């Protein structure tokens, strides 16, 4: 029997689903393979641990990773290559994944991970309150998703409704998280972080400033929660204090579970509103990877590959965690197409954008780190957007 040591950073509603999948996997492979799973804190702490554990040869056998961070990981030599033979063994291949996703796990023509999903951010909303306020369309969507003015008007209308504390719940205390929203808003203006290895070239800086300005306006007008950290944001939304919330699809199961317990209002999730020119949503992928720095027996490696393969092929269940499975065969299934609320926001797959492919990018990577540092003061009105952009450019170029 092989024990596969597994690390992930899936702590939210999707973490519960992943634990279920691990349990299912263990049942299905009783006596052959057993997964010994650990969930670590998301972000910097997780990647710090990975880095040090690889450095000292104490790495796990398999871990989740963000596709956006793979270039950095490859650069640091943290990951083992997955050879074509490995893919054969898994019964998976390029054809099973969308090209953009496949590309995201490749570097120098080699593969470093098995993508499992894409996970964009979406707009969650409280149908009960919006309905009462008359702000729900006939399709049951919030009104005003079409433009900045309309959406702001919706928020303002909610604000004027005295029962509402926060029209919008945003993770304003955590720059790491806000990176997703802001990068989405840049995408709506076709902005680029990196152009040929240079940062925020040309009017990209202005686009960033625009994105920040919108969010700061919402803060200044009292339309969104300030200094709210991640758990508080979720709590504000689920307790009804915030009517809408921008968050990852991975919080879907939280809602589903609370609703099942009868502890939640009528809710929905939809693609981000179009604030600027066109729809665009930042997205990333969860990927399975095998870290360097652990001497695996061929048997162990085979077991690890089996884990990856099994989860990829069974990722219909993973879709109940809100994510969009990366495996084309799953998304093609009817069962998936009927799944709610995934269906409501499935349209956004066409509008997804990804991090630039560079060792500077990625969750908890250097760009991410520098930018997030300036988001918190800006979003909470401590710093002017223009000043923030200036500082960001200075620091990015200083790296």
């Amino acid at each position, binding site marked *: 029997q092989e024990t596969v*040591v597994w690390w992930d950073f*899936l*702590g*939210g*509603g999707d*973490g519960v689903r992943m634990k279920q999948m691990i349990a299912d996997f263990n049942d299905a492979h009783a006596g052959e393979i057993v997964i010994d799973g*650990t*969930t*670590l*804190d*998301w972000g910097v*702490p997780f990647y710090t*641990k990975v880095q*040090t*554990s690889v*450095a*000292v*040869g*104490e*790495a796990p056998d398999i871990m989740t990773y963000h596709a956006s961070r793979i270039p950095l990981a490859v650069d640091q030599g943290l990951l083992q290559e997955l050879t074509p033979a490995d893919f054969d063994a898994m019964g998976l291949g390029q054809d099973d994944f969308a090209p953009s996703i496949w590309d995201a796990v490749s570097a120098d023509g080699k593969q470093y991970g098995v993508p499992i999903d894409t996970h964009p951010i979406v707009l969650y909303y409280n149908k009960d309150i919006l309905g009462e306020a008359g702000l729900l369309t006939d399709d049951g969507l919030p009104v005003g998703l079409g433009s900045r003015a309309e959406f702001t008007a919706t928020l303002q209308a909610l604000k004027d409704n005295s029962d509402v504390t926060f029209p919008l719940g945003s993770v304003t205390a955590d720059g790491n998280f806000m990176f997703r929203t802001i990068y989405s808003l840049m995408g709506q203006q076709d902005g680029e972080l990196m152009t040929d290895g240079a940062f925020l070239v040309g009017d990209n800086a202005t686009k960033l400033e625009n994105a920040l300005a919108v969010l700061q306006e919402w803060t200044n007008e009292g339309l969104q929660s300030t200094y709210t950290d*991640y*758990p*508080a944001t*979720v*709590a504000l939304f*689920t*307790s009804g*204090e915030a009517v809408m919330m921008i968050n990852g699809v*991975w*919080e879907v199961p*939280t809602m589903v579970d609370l609703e099942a317990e009868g*502890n939640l209002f009528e809710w929905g999730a939809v693609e981000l509103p179009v604030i600027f020119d066109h729809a665009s949503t930042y997205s990333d992928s969860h990927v399975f990877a095998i870290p360097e720095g652990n001497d695996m027996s061929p048997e162990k490696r085979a077991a690890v590959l089996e884990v990856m393969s099994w989860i990829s092929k069974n990722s219909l269940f993973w879709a109940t965690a809100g994510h969009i499975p990366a495996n084309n065969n799953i998304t093609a299934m009817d069962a998936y197409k009927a799944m709610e609320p995934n269906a409501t926001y499935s349209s956004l797959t066409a509008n997804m954008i990804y991090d630039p492919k560079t060792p500077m990018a990625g969750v908890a990577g250097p760009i991410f780190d520098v930018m997030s540092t300036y988001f918190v003061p800006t979003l909470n009105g401590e710093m002017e957007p223009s000043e923030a952009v200036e500082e960001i450019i200075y620091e990015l170029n200083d790296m």
Partner: protein
Amino acid sequence: MTPTTIRRINWMGGAFTILTVLIAVLWAFPIYWGIISSLKPENEVVRPYIELWPDTLTFEHYWFALTQTQIGKWYINSIATSVGVTVLTVSTSLFAGYAISQLRFPGRRVLWWLILASFMVPTQVLIINHFVLMANMSLLNSWAGIILPQLIHPVIVIVFKQFFDQVPKDFREAAAMDNASEWAVLFKIYIPMNWGVITALSIVTFIWAWNAFLWPFLAVTKTEMMTITVGITQVFDAFGVYYARQLSAAVLAGFPVALVYLVFQRRVTQAITLSAGIKG
């Protein structure tokens, strides 16, 4: 002052006492608040008003922490490493302190000065090198790796030395007249005589070791090897609203030291003053 001064002072003293007690209660209130919050259902926890006693008292979060997390293993790790640090630190320091205090040997002064000097050096600056050293010795993620770098407590040697210095040399001489060997002097006279200090220092060393954060945090990359103080901040369902759960884990982590303190209050107090070089 008027002839009624004495009475007025008494009255003011009473008021002052009540004030002191109130402030003390307020001082410890956050601890109470943490504990009481951990006993509320999650939806009560986030109610937007102050609720000093839960509507529904629940142990579900404790149950969750104890069954769904590795807190049991962390407890074992914490106990094993804290006891290890305590036993090793106290015993090596005891022997060293005794030798420096009572025996004459070449190198004694140099050793003493080194210890005094290292008293000021922050071990925090050595984290990198400790990490590399432990990695090279393949001790990361092991109890030994957590314990070893925590063994530098020059202050314990200093306290022991001072204590042994204070033992009147009459005892040593009485023992010599009693035909006691050098070992008998140490084990049958000096150690039992100073048992109070030894336990006091052991208790604070234990508390320090239990509360250690930085090094155990760095030295362990595997969850099952974490100590409880590190574990509760590292491995948690950060995504999602589980304040009460986090608090229940915190209560579990703080409980043993709080208990040790409440039981050995006087010894802890004594050891703290000793560790600052004040004779209790």
